[in-house]
């Protein structure tokens, strides 16, 4: 399931996300691993936002990047608070490692661009990334979460991610006018 999802995400976006290792087909994730994936996925978008805040001069892009930084930081804080309460230690796994590997490539790609090329690349990447993460949360993380509070947290994060996606798509559409 993961492999199919990641291939679909990469095909849709043309981006370099989520290249799954061959042995990681249809992985079953424990709650500790899901927590790790959730924190990693949020931190990656905080990192992308930090690059945008340094490189962009477009007011709308900067405003969007600040929202991404603030919202994903708030989500990480909520996740950390929950796993602390549940006495769960987020566990590194093939999915979170794959996310980080993909993010490193994307960060290099973004760092190499400037001006309007950067703005377009950042916004295109935000659309693709949120499409991929929404799909993963909806079809993998929520169904596999065992703890009710973890499942509930993921369910409350989903509309935030979908709103980010709609916002990024709006920026993308305005840029392409």
């Amino acid at each position, binding site marked *: 399931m993961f492999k199919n999802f990641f291939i679909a995400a990469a095909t849709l976006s043309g981006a370099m996300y989520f290249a799954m290792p061959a042995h990681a087909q249809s992985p079953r994730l424990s709650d500790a691993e899901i927590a790790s994936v959730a924190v990693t996925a949020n931190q990656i978008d905080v990192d992308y936002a930090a690059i945008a805040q340094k490189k962009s001069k477009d007011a709308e892009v900067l405003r969007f990047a600040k929202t991404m930084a603030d919202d994903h930081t708030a989500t990480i804080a909520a996740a950390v608070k929950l796993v602390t309460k549940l006495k769960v230690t987020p566990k590194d796994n093939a999915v979170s490692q794959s996310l980080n590997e993909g993010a490193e490539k994307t960060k290099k790609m973004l760092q190499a661009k400037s001006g309007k090329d950067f703005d377009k690349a950042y916004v295109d990447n935000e659309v693709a990334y949120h499409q991929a993460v929404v799909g993963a949360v909806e079809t993998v993380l929520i169904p596999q979460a065992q703890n009710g509070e973890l499942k509930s947290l993921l369910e409350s994060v989903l*509309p935030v991610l979908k709103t980010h996606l709609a*916002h990024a798509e709006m920026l993308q559409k305005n840029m392409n006018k």
Partner: protein
Amino acid sequence: MSRLRQFKLQYLPGIVLLLTAGCSSNLQPPQKHTITIAAMKFSPDTVFIASGDTLEFINQDMVDHDITDFPDKKWTSSKLQPGDTWMYVPVKSGSYFCSIHQVMKGEIVIK
């Protein structure tokens, strides 16, 4: 019977009735309408109110929001953190949005 007295007898009850009816509707106390912000939506997203009514916005989400006039940004709340509440008495009908998450929109209709 003087013309004035005749006029009073004929028309005064009607005038009083009209004035009273007008006053009674205006004397209704202003109402408070609550709009929750949850799951990245204003609920209800369209609110029908009377002039002078108060809107109470409650942020039940896990992220910050604001409430801002759309599209001219003539009025805005301060940033509402999770759990925060903001009161507003609209002076005219119009649209609003969250300027942080610009796809979140709502509508105020003053009847």
